[in-house]
Structure formats: C-alpha cells, structure tokens
C-alpha cells in the first residue's frame, strides 16, 4: 500500500519539520513541507498530496488565500484541507473536533500533539 502524501504549509519551519519527522516515523506517510505561502500552490500541484495542513497566519500569503486557490485548482479541489492555527479561541476549541458549523474546512488549534494529528488525518482521508 502506497504511502499517503501529506503537505504541510507553515511558515514556522521548525514546527513543520518536527511534524514531518513525527508523521514519517509512523511509516505510513510521505510528508512534504512548504514554508512559503506564495509557493504553496505550485508545490501542491507538483506534489499531489492526499491531505493538506495549512497554517492560517503566514507573512507573505495567508492560509485563507492559499485555500482559495487550491479549492479552485482542477486537480487539487478534492484534496481535504485542515487549517492549523494559533489564533483559536477557547470557545472555538470546545467545538466538537474543530469543526465549526458552516465552515468548509475543519481546523486544528496549535499547539497540537501527534495523536490529534493522526486522528484528524484518519478521519479526513477515510
């Protein structure tokens, strides 16, 4: 069985690399890291991920815009996106599994543990 491809778009490179390390350690995922919002679409088109973790706040192009372009890409529009964000309020966290009614994409609040990430991946790709 081929490894699932996971793309992490986050300007915080150390975090992204640690996530990559932890996920690849499971042996089930092929992970790629992109730290520049402006490069995100191109990388995704080239990499062809099964799931994208997308940071919301990035210095050049923010996550929302990246998601907008990915949603409109022929090849990528069916790829699930999970937002990763540090700016999450307590109220939003209580919301079941990070899904806000009416929001197109679920999100995960940073800081996040490996187990939560894996749960999320399983739910989104199954």
């Amino acid at each position, binding site marked *: 069985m081929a490894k699932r491809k996971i793309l992490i778009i986050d300007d*915080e490179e*150390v*975090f992204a690399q*640690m*996530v990559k*390390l*932890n996920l690849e*350690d499971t042996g089930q995922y092929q992970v790629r890291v992109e730290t520049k919002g402006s490069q995100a679409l191109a990388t995704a088109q080239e990499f062809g991920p099964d799931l994208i973790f997308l940071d919301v*706040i990035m210095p050049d192009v923010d996550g929302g815009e990246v998601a907008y372009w990915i949603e409109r890409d022929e090849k990528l529009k069916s790829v699930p996106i999970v937002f990763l964000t*540090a*700016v*999450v*309020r*307590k*109220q939003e*966290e*209580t*919301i*079941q599994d990070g899904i806000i009614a009416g929001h197109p994409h679920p999100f995960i*609040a*940073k*800081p*996040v*543990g*490996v*187990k939560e990430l894996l749960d999320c991946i399983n739910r989104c790709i199954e």
Partner: protein
Amino acid sequence: MRISLRVKWVIYIAILIVLSASALSFYFIGKLKTSEKAHLVRQGLNLTSNLAYNSEYGVLIANEEMLSKLIQGVTREKDVVYCVIQDLQGRILSSDGVNQGHFVFTEDFNKKALDVKTSLVQFYYSPKGVGIYDIAVPIISETKESYADELEFFAADQQFPLKTESSKIGVARVGISIASANKRIYMVQRTALIATSIVIVIAVFITYFMVGAIVTPIQRLVKGTKTLAMGNLDYRTSIQTNDEIGDLGKAFNKMTKDLKASRDELVKAKDYANNIIESMLDSVIIVSPEGRIVRVNPATVDLLGYREIELIGKGLAIIFLDGKMPFEGKRLKALIKEGKLGNYETYYQAKNGKKIPVLFSGSVMKDIYGSVICIVCTARDITDRKKTEETLQKAYTELKETQDQLIQAEKMEVVGSLASGVAHEVKNPLSIILQCVDYLLEKVKTDDKNIAMTLGHIKDSVKRADNVAKGLLDFSSLSKLNVEEYNLNAIAERALFLMKHQFDRHHIAIERQLDNDLPLVKVDRNRIEQAFINIFMNAASAMHAGGKLTIASYVSKSDNEDKTVIFHIEDTGPGIPEETLGKIFDPFFTTRREFGGTGLGLSVVMNIIERHNAKISVYNRQEGGVRVSLIFKA
C-alpha cells in the same frame, strides 16, 4: 329736629331784642303811667279846690243857680266826668254829669268823701268800666286864713289838721276820667310795640345776612367736606373773602389738593403693585399669619386650575402635593426668623391632582413692630425645566456610558492586539515543544519512569500555557461590539447546541423554561453566545459526574416602562464556597488550574455583560448548585 345755624342766630337775636324792648317798655310805660296819674290827680285837685273855694258863698246862701254855673264851668274841663257839690249830710246841692252813669258810689265811699278834711282822692271803676278818680275837697267857710292851698297834693289823701278855726260847710267832688290818659298810654305802648317790631324785623334781616356772611362759607366748607368724603377730590370751595374764613377756604383747598395728590400717588402706587402681581407669570399667593390664603394672582389660577374663590380662605396646604408644606417644623422657624425661604424645590398639586414641580419661595411681611402681616409665596412652574433636566441627565448618562464603552473598547483593542500577538508568538513555540515532546516520547523507550514523567510535565505545562494564551485571545476578541436586535432565546439555544457534546459526555440533562414572548434585545450575538458558553462550561465542569442544567428566561416589567429580559442558568453542582464567591470574577482566579482552568472565563463573561449594559449575578442556590442570573434591558 335740626335747626340751622342761621335760624338759631336769628332766633337768639330776636329773643334778645324782644326781651330788652319789653323790659324797656315796661319800665318807661310804668313811668309814664305814674306821671299821667300824678298829672290827672294834680289837675283834679286844682279844679276841685278852686270849685270848693269858689262855691263857699253859693253853699252858704244855697244859691243853686250860682253853684250850677260854677259846676258847668268845671265839667267843661278836659277829662272831667262829673261834678257834685254836697252838703255835710250828703245832699246834692248841685251836680253835673252824674247821669252819665259814672257816679255810682257805695255808702262807705260817700262817707269817706263827706268826712274829708283837706282833700281826698279815691279811685274806682265806673259801671261803664272807666277808671275814675273821685276827688273830694271840703268847702270851708273861711273865717280865718286857710292853708289848704299850700298843702302837698301828693299827700292829698292824708288828713292835715287845719291850723285855723274854720267850719266845713260842704264837699266839692269832681270825677276825673283816666280814659284819655289811658288812651295816651295805649298810644305810646302801641308806638313802642310797632317800633320794637320794626327793630326786630330789621335786626332779623341784619342778623340773617350777617350770620349768612359767616354761615354761607361754612356751609360751603361743609358741602366741600361732604363731597370730599364721597371721594371727589377735584372739588374746590369758592370762598374768597379776605378774612379768617377766607384763610380757612384756602387752607381747605390746599388740603384737598394735597390730599388728591397723595391719593393719586397712592392709587398709582397701589395700581402699580397690583399690576405687577396680576401680570406676574409666577404664581403669587398671599397667606395670612394663620396660614389662610388671602389672595392669589391669575398665574396661580392658571397653574392650579382652581377658581379664585375656591382658594381664598383655605389653608395653604391645599395646594401642596399631599398637603405637605415646605415650611414645617425647622424650616418654618427658619422662615419666620430669616424672613424668607428661597428657591426651594417642591411640588404643588393642581385641582385635578396633577403634580407640578415648582421652585418655591416664601417671604414674611412684617409691620414696623415686627409682627407678621402676611406671608408672600411665589412659585415658578419648573415642569419644563425638570423635563429638560431629566433629558439632559439621561443624555449625560448615555454619553457617559458610551464614553465608558469607547474607553473600554479602546482598552480592549490595545489589550486585544497585544494578546493576539502574544498568543500567536507563544503558541508557535508551544507547538514546536509539543511536537518535540511527542517525538521524544516515541523514541525514548526507557525504564526510567522519571523521563516519561518529565516529558508528561512538559506536555501539561504546554497545555496550561496554551490555555492562558487562548483566554487572552478571548479577552482580545471583545474589542468591537456588533449589535443588532436578537431574541436571546435563540442565542442561548445555539450555545446549548454547541455545548451538546460536552453535556453528553458529562451526562448532564438540560431543562428549558424559556419564555416564547421575549422582546428583542440589542446585543452582539457572538459575544453573548460566548458568555453563555463560558457559563455553560463552568456548569459542566462543576457537574463532571452528571447533573441537570436548567435554563429559564422571562420578561419582567418594572414600575417604569423599561422591560427587562432575565435569564437563569442553574446547575446541580457543589456550589461555590462563600469565601471564594467574591473572587470568581477576578481574572485568573480559578480553582481548576490542574484541569486546565485559566480563571478568565467569568471575567470575559463580566466584560461582555457590562458592555451590553446588562447585569450578572452568581449565587449559591438553597437546594445546592449555582444560579447565574443575567438581566438585559429590553
């Protein structure tokens, strides 16, 4: 009966004249009578003496013819009525005029005449009513010298002894009538009477006019005074004589003029004062020292709706709200002592019961001796001012609130941007730490339990720091309110929906007692939802082993028109210990730090509630558990 001065004087003068004239007449006529009588008697004696003397011879020779001649000569004399010559026995030797009815004597009378020594005068009234002197003289046969001629006539009826030897041979008697004398006296009397009458008439006239000269000006003065008394001060007397009365007239005119001037002044002053009171826009009420209303001006009538007569004589309390006067007890004393009570805000009550706010002033009017004449109460209707004041006050409060909110919002914005920046910057390192810890937990397989424990501590600390950052973000999100009208029930329902997962996990039952007719309330939907969620989360935390959450809403109508919407959120948890009840709204106060509590939940709720001008209160229920009440102004 009233007799005028003039008549009185006329009567006095007339009486005076009559009295003096009578006295004078009485005296002079008396005198006249006496002298007339004397004259008659003297004349009679002369005649009779002559007759007696001349008839001596005739008697002696008893020559009747001779005697008759003598007698006729005598009777021709004036006033002589009769003439008789008698002998000593009383026989009439000769007579004349006796038949005329005058000569009727009594015996005694005759005897006296026959007994005459020198002369005798007797008076009687003849049957015809004529007064007559009967004069008797003896006829002496003279042998010796007679002294009869030299006797005093006035003592005629006295008997003088004859000094010579002579013999009486008869008596000559002559009757003298006083009729003509009387007639003369009568004439004099009449003249006197006429003269007196004329004098009286003249005197009356003179008096009348003289008194008139005094009385007429007095009458004019009297008339003037009467006219004056009737109020006509324009009257002037026309007395212009140059004497004391003239002075009086001038004084009167001057007095009248001065009186008119001062009265005009007074009337003017009174009119002026009256006009002021009548035209004042403020209510003026004059009160007697006993507290009765004596006078009110039109403004009072307009203000209170009473008619004037309904107020006059009434106690002043009638016009005050519930009869409460502003000057009672202490204030009354102060009023009397200081004489005034200035600009005191109180309420009048109109006839229809309407409450009228007024600015009341009272002042006491005293006379020069210091006793109270009246109390003057003025009042200004300040309904409009009150309204304006209230509006202003309201506007001010609103402004203040808005300002407070703005300041709060500004503060929150600063805190917010700071907090979100901090949160973001803190969370990223925390994320890295968490990933690293997870990596190590996976890789470091060791029997040393302390390593696993240490890594566990790191992980917990990360969660705690993260929670604080999240709380700060909550706080920061309050910066701007986005208010619209909402039904609070709907917002509560949505919060319940979002919390469903939590409640289910803790086996918490939900009971709803929501009023379906809630008025709409202006709120920021997201913030109120956040407040509900924080409260629900606290309840859920308190009931981690299960329980019941009751949420109730209702409308309360308070005495004024403002409606309020009230929410009660009750749990069946352990409640809050009394000693910590005062601290639960403090930021970072928590009893659940080890379970990830930050102590920011209720501070955020408080913030949201305050910024909506609502109220929150948290207390322990008697049955156990906590009740949170939210009160919103509709």
